[in-house]
């Protein structure tokens, strides 16, 4: 049975597909977007790190670490990943749970057991969404998990950056009931700068999806200074409309909550401020709607 490193299994997911969903976050991603909301998902290996706001400075972990991989910071501690042996001694002694490992190696069966816990909540519409990281970067594990879900009668969705070999993408198209496809930047040069990869493969994979039978929703993250421009949204929408005008677009507002994760991982985060207002989001939505597509964003229709 296949295994993968899983960095979170989020229950009661309400933003990644229809109904109530369990979202499985798989580690490792071929892209390295500057704004990535789940930086712990960028790399495959599991690492130990510290939620510094929970750390009380008791230094139990430092005493417990035989490899001497942990050093004290003014607030919290830092784990030297090159020295750390993953023995777990520090995790065990940390009294607050501030130290945590950012992923667990799990088998398909173990993940299925977690998914089954919320079976009663899925109803006809809900189910499972594979996210990451990038689920297509662990194709054997992800495809087996999708197959198991299907066998169990659970609706499946994947959330993907589309940067995968076409034959792998085709296999996912076959295996999933819904595809949430991220298109970030249309300009190849800007795409390469911001994500580290060229977008030719992504766009050609999208063409394949657009012709297929599996329902697709395009999602564009609205990152100030990067993706959030009228021209970018318009170009993506024009591209989508030219391939299949029935595919809807969801605009995902910028969410600054991940900044703390970057701090914990000892990484720099792009200097962003506030999410966009509803009026600003409406401008981007109009730019996309101009191409005849169904466009939505969270908070679009307030309840009267």
């Amino acid at each position, binding site marked *: 049975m296949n295994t993968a490193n899983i960095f979170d299994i989020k229950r009661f997911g309400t933003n990644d597909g229809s*109904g109530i969903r369990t979202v499985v976050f798989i580690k490792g991603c071929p892209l390295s977007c500057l704004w990535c909301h789940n930086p712990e998902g960028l790399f495959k290996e599991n690492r130990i790190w510290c939620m510094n706001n929970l750390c009380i400075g008791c230094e139990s972990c430092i005493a417990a670490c035989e490899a001497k991989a942990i050093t004290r910071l003014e607030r919290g501690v830092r784990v030297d990943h090159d020295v750390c042996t993953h023995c777990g001694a520090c995790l065990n002694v940390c009294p607050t749970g501030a130290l945590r490992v950012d992923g667990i190696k799990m088998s398909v069966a173990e993940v299925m057991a977690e998914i089954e816990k919320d079976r009663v909540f899925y109803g006809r519409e809900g189910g499972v969404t594979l996210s990451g990281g990038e689920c297509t970067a662990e194709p054997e594990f992800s495809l087996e998990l999708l197959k198991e879900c299907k066998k169990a009668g659970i609706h499946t969705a994947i959330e993907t950056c589309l940067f995968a070999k076409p034959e792998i993408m085709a296999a996912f198209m076959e295996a999933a009931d819904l595809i949430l496809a991220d298109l970030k930047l249309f300009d190849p040069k800007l795409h390469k700068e911001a994500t580290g990869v060229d977008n030719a493969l992504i766009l050609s994979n999208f063409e394949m999806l657009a012709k297929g039978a599996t329902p697709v929703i395009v999602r564009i993250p609205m990152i100030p200074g990067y993706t959030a421009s009228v021209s970018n949204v318009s170009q993506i929408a024009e591209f989508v409309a030219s391939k299949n005008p029935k595919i809807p677009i969801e605009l995902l507002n910028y969410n600054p909550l991940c900044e703390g994760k970057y701090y914990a991982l000892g990484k720099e985060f792009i200097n962003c401020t506030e999410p966009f207002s509803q009026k600003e989001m409406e401008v981007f939505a109009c730019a996309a709607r101009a191409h005849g597509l169904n466009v939505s964003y969270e*908070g679009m229709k307030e309840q009267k």
Partner: protein
Amino acid sequence: MKSSNTSINKISELMQSERISGLRAKLFLEERYASIEQAHIVTEVYKQNPGLPVNILRAKALKAALLGMQIRIDQGELIVGNRTAGIRGGVIFPESGLSWVDNEIENLKTRPQDKFGVRAEDIKEFREEILPFWKGRTLEDVLDERIGDEMRLIGKVAKINQTDHAQGHICPDTKLWLKEGPSGILKNAKAHIAAASGEQAQFYEGIVIAMEGASAFMNRYAELAFSLKDSPGYKAEEMLELSRICAKLAKEPPETFHEAVQSAWFLYVLLHMESNASSFSPGRMDQYLYPFYEKDKNAGRLSLDKALELVQCLFIKFNHIVYLRSSGSARYFAGFPIGFNVALGGVNKQGEDASNELSYLFLRAQEHLGLPQPNLSARVHKDSPEYFLYRCSQVIGRGSGMPQLFNDEAVIPALINRGISKEDALNYAIVGCVELTTMGNSLGWSDAAMFNMVKALELALNDGVCLLSGKQMGAKTGTLAEFKTYEDVEAALMKQIDFFFSRMISCCEIVEKAHAELLPSPLLSSVIQGCMEKGLDVTAGGAVYNLSGIQAIQCANIEDSLAALKTLVFEQKRFSPQAVHAALVNNFEGEELMRLTLLNKAPKYGNDVEWVDNIANKWIGIFSKKLEQYTNARGGIYHAGLYTVSAHVPMGQNVGATPDGRSSREPLADGGMSAVYGRDMKGPTALLKSVSRVDSHFGSNGTLLNMKFLPDLFMHEDGLKKFVSLIRAFVELKIIHVQFNVVRLEDLLKAQENPEQYRSLTIRVAGYTAYFTELARDLQNEIIKRTSYASL
């Protein structure tokens, strides 16, 4: 989303009239006063009639009050009647107890919770005329003499209730009242007198007197309305119609929808005047009012707008009566909940969906008004229409905490398991906050006592000695330091529970008998099935069903504490029993690392961990089964409830440090079935799974689960549909009850800063809704701290 019924779609879009906006605004403008008017009348009747049988005396006192109290009709009111002339008056009721009033009357204006104005001349009359007469005669004084010492001895573990007020928490047979009216009941009682003698004849005579008073009361409103027809601000047409209705109801049963709503409201006012108790519950109003609604609508006499306006007038009336409690009691039951509990939807006699247009009218009324009363409940079941659940979700999303949801698939089997007939179980309603009852034929005595199992655990770990006072309180069962295994802990806990159980039951029995002796209730007895047939007062066991409920408090803390001992102390041996015992005794002084480890390194209730949740189920089961061994003073059974209302704060203050890492005097988990705040880390689905592991049969007296959501989910149709899925799962998981607070954290913080601007912000406290700004600061803070579930 739309319904396939066009009337229902129209109902969901009806607008609120100016009349209703005006009446609603007026609720907040008038200052609340404590009232001794009825106390004065009752005292006179008791003084003038020494030696009369007490039920006759009570009936005469009620009749005198109905004839003599000031009454008022406000401009714009379509439904009239109150027990004080002022809005939200706090009635001082001498028969049940005055010693707390004696201690507190001067402070009612300034106490931290539920303030009332008091007039200086009233204080004088209270001290000179009323108090001296009642010394030693009240329920409170009598019970204090009989079992005061015993109650104080066991009180930190087993708190005995119903000791200083008359018994409410009952669902009268409003359907019968609408069929008979006071004159029909009077005729019926007179017919019984002919064949009765002795105490039975006296019983019927009491009902006759009460009904005479009831008719006279209605006639007084008829006269007042007539006299106001030409007064400025009143509409002649409306006053004449009101006058006609009140005069008619004094003699005959209602026929129109307006008459029926007015008749029902009169009944609840009358019951409050007889007993000044909390919760005379209307129950399934959408069912028994429906024939009146349907007849008028079909005859073209009633528009949907008018029907909504009448329902909203009634809703506003529900807020005119509040219940004056002692400051101690107000801490347990903050925000004067009065428990007009209305249950919508559910199944009918055949087990099919019973929701109708009135159910949707009531939901629309709540959506507009968002007031603390009625305590609106929706009964849901596996075949509840999608649109009904959708409308419930929309109204919940408005943030008033209502409707709370009750699950027919859990409640009906739990009641049948307690010996309730299937027909009565299918027709269940709710009294007070969350207590389950049958309609019109039961005295459930649902709050006989609260049993603090967490305190019992504290004693079990410390040889029966209270950690807070150092006093020997329970059985000598050794200390944690001497225990060798986890089983030793369980054995000690069992002994502590046994130690308090028999003492608690004896006290409850004496309390119930004192009610029958001092506070027979002729008017109430006339609208509870069984009493008229048996010729026996409801307090003496006249009802068809006679249950008593005792609350087991609190499964989350018990589970978390026992799980921490089992895993960290006895299995992993991270801490020795001696070290943990010493830390508990010292309230974790100097042992913060241990406290945090106990808190964070053992599994907790609310996270869908089956073996841990089985601990709660085991102990709640033990508690529930122990109760089954006893019979109450009225010949009925005891059963368990799993709710605390807002008592988790004061009850927590009675408990020392516990092995779940909770420091001394901190609140317990709120509600009853909720997790300790902040400890349910896996979201709402995991919490519901944990809750579902406590067998719903054990909580047949009622359970309470609080969940808090941010408003985002309710903003659009897609989110609402997801919420409906959550409700469907709640039904399938057979959880008895859940209620939802939907409120922004910023709003609560702002309301604390600027209470003036947030006077109408209502919040679900426990089993009821109160004005947030009227809650004491510690309770406000506690609500802010409770978990909220953001979406991803």
